[in-house]
């Protein structure tokens, strides 16, 4: 049983669990959309005084901040109790493609070349992390949602705007993967 939990979970079980989380949030009178938290945190930090986009009743969104805290705890609990920290079993073709960009085969969940302490404190490494975050934050609010809000919640409701946003996610992702990353790494 423990072995079943500590090994990586199947795509179908994980997908079903994500749908279940969405339905529980709907049942509790809310909706599944994680990037709203970014705006809420800006508002809670008092940025509504200088910009009206952040001037709203952020306290109505505390439930989502609590969800965020839970997500951090979930990552922590998995690391402590439910993980073997085994290398991610990605496709051989991906390993080969990434090695051309200078990435070693997976040794754990994330590449040390991007998320290790050495990378984090190098200028280039820091810039990559910063720009990545900047684009995710800017883009998700511009598009009005992220993977949870558009790809899961929006598509489940057959919303055309969400379909367009998801097409955008992939357009940007493919440009980064095939055109920009070979220039950076």
């Amino acid at each position, binding site marked *: 049983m423990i072995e079943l939990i500590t090994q*990586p979970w199947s*795509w179908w079980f994980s*997908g079903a669990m*994500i*749908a279940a*989380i*969405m339905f529980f949030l*709907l*049942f509790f009178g809310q909706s599944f959309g994680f990037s709203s*938290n*970014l*705006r809420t945190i800006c508002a809670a930090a008092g940025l509504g005084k200088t*910009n009206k*986009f952040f001037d709203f009743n952020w306290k109505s969104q505390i439930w989502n901040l*609590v*969800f*965020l*805290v839970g*997500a*951090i705890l*979930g*990552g922590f*609990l*998995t690391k402590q109790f439910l993980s073997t920290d085994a290398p991610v079993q*990605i496709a051989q073709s*991906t390993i080969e493609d990434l090695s051309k960009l200078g990435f070693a085969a997976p040794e754990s969940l*994330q*590449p040390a070349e991007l*998320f*290790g302490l050495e990378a*984090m404190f190098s200028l280039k*490494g820091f810039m*990559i*992390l910063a720009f*990545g975050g900047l*684009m*995710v*934050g*800017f*883009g998700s*609010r511009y*598009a*009005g949602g*992220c993977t949870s809000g558009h*790809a899961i919640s929006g*598509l*489940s*409701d057959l*919303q055309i705007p*969400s379909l*367009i*946003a*998801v097409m955008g*996610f*992939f357009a*940007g*992702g493919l440009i*980064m993967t095939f055109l*920009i*990353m070979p220039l950076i790494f």
Partner: protein
Amino acid sequence: MKFIKFLLLGIVFGIVMTKSEAVSWFRIQEMFRFQAFHMYGIIGTAVTLGVTGVALIKKFKIRDYHGNPIVFSPKDRSVSRYLLGGSIFGLGWALSGACPGPMVVNVGYGYWAMAIVFFFALVGTYLYGVLKSKLPH
């Protein structure tokens, strides 16, 4: 106490995202290179069940636990904001290998570098607020 259910759902979310490896930069790269079914399987399963469930909620007018109807508000009609905003999001998603949820899950897992990514996601959100009126929507 009314928030405890959201804390529990968040914990489950964090565990599922980590155990499915959807929080891994490697998995996101594998997805954008179309070299495995894994991520498509996760998102596809969630959306298939999601579409079915949402249709059932609408058909049977299911209410939430407060007794209020569960309503789905249509998003504003536009192409440019979703395509442009989505593309910028996608650039960042492929580079950092994380959307906002997985960022904080990674921090919990012990990848402190993701805290930098998350901080700049906040900066990016603020930047959007500043530039909002000048952008095509």
